[in-house]
């Protein structure tokens, strides 16, 4: 069901995962990342209690084997099951190397908002806050703009933040940003994107430090 934009973001994010590492994928675009991983030493953790998540074909689906998005998954050789308190102990305790998460908004210091919208009732938070405080590295995958065309990368979030923790990297269909000392740095343009387009669609202040091999196509 995922569209081309989502797939391009997910496949770019996959390049950031080099095993051995333990990775937790959020709902949405992050979930797509798994299919771009060949590395046998990238181990997927899901907070509902499984280390060693893998794909499952329809015929082998088990109603009691799902990921945090309640989608059917499989288990790898060497997988293990544990309870919710143990699972979040792993997350908060710093035992998950990377969390890849979606956002509703993020600010120019690297704080994100991905759990609540003002004016609507706050009905769910799930594991988002735990992953943000606990994962060693947080990578955000998101479309650059909201459905109404407004930038998701803002000077300040208008939605409630998920954590005071600063994320490490943001990947959109237009660009890759790293967060350094609470400042966004554009390090890569996605195929077909231009710096002008990124500037136009980004409210947040960011610096530009394109890696060499992106300089020609980008500017």
């Amino acid at each position, binding site marked *: 069901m995922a569209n081309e934009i989502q797939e391009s973001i997910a496949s770019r994010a996959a390049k950031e995962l080099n095993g051995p590492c333990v990775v937790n994928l959020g709902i949405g675009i992050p979930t797509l990342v798994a299919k771009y991983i060949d590395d046998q030493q990238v181990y997927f953790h899901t907070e509902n*209690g499984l280390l060693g998540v893998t794909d499952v074909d329809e015929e082998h689906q088990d109603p*009691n084997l*799902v990921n945090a998005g309640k989608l059917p998954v499989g288990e790898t050789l060497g997988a293990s099951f544990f309870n919710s*308190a143990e699972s979040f102990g792993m997350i908060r305790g710093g035992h998950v190397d990377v969390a890849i998460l979606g956002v509703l908004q993020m600010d120019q210091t690297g704080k994100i908002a991905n759990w609540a919208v003002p004016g609507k009732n706050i009905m769910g938070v*799930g594991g988002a806050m735990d992953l943000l405080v606990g994962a060693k590295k947080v990578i955000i995958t998101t479309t650059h703009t909201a459905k109404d065309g407004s930038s998701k990368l803002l000077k300040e979030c208008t939605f409630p933040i998920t954590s005071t923790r600063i994320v490490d990297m943001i990947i959109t269909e237009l660009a890759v940003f790293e967060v350094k000392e609470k400042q966004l740095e554009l390090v890569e343009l996605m195929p077909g994107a231009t710096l002008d387009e990124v500037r136009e669609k980004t409210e947040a202040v960011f610096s530009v430090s394109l890696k060499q091999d992106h300089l020609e196509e980008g500017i």
Partner: protein
Amino acid sequence: MSKLLENGTAALKSVRTGDTIMVGGFGLIGAPLTLIDALTEKDVKDLTIISNNLGEKGKGLGILLGQKKIKKGIGSYFTSNRDVGDAYRRGEIKLELLPQGTLSESIRAGGAGIGGYYTKTGVGTELAKNKEEREINGELYIFEPAIRANVALIRAWKADTLGNLVYYKTARNFNPVMATAADVVIAEVDKIVEPGELSPEEIVTPHLFVDGILLATKILTNEGVVTHG
């Protein structure tokens, strides 16, 4: 004195109006569907339900919600059932939202004689409003109190007749911690075996936590919830 229970009615003997009840499961996965069904048939109300979700629309705890038997929900992700939001807007239900890690840790604390604890999760967010903040080794934490219940309704895979439990895949989730944190703990299971049939090394919930065991008759399948037996 046997822990084996004949049916849902017997299993819920100790549930009273106004009780706080923990219900295992992550959505319908690992939820004690047979016991929830019995709860919908029992004449009680004003319940406080501690569960990650309040079921799905018209399923699991969602039925109990529709019956207006729930006074308050404590959980992490009510979004999975749109009816919860509607009931909340109509003022029919109170909600307490906790990060999922805080929910599970507070329940564990309640079961382990811990009065409360400090977590980093939620610091500086709306969910930390009015919560005590404390700096420990240069990092900010917030205080979270332990959670306990009168009754815990949980789902396991196999029980032996003593009450030892093992779980099945991701249907484990909140069940083992809830098994520790209520005055009365009732487990619904797929299979009941003799003591010694479960390996002492793989028992997840030792029998001292479990008060009653019921064979499940509502089973989650790929085709939805079906009734057996």
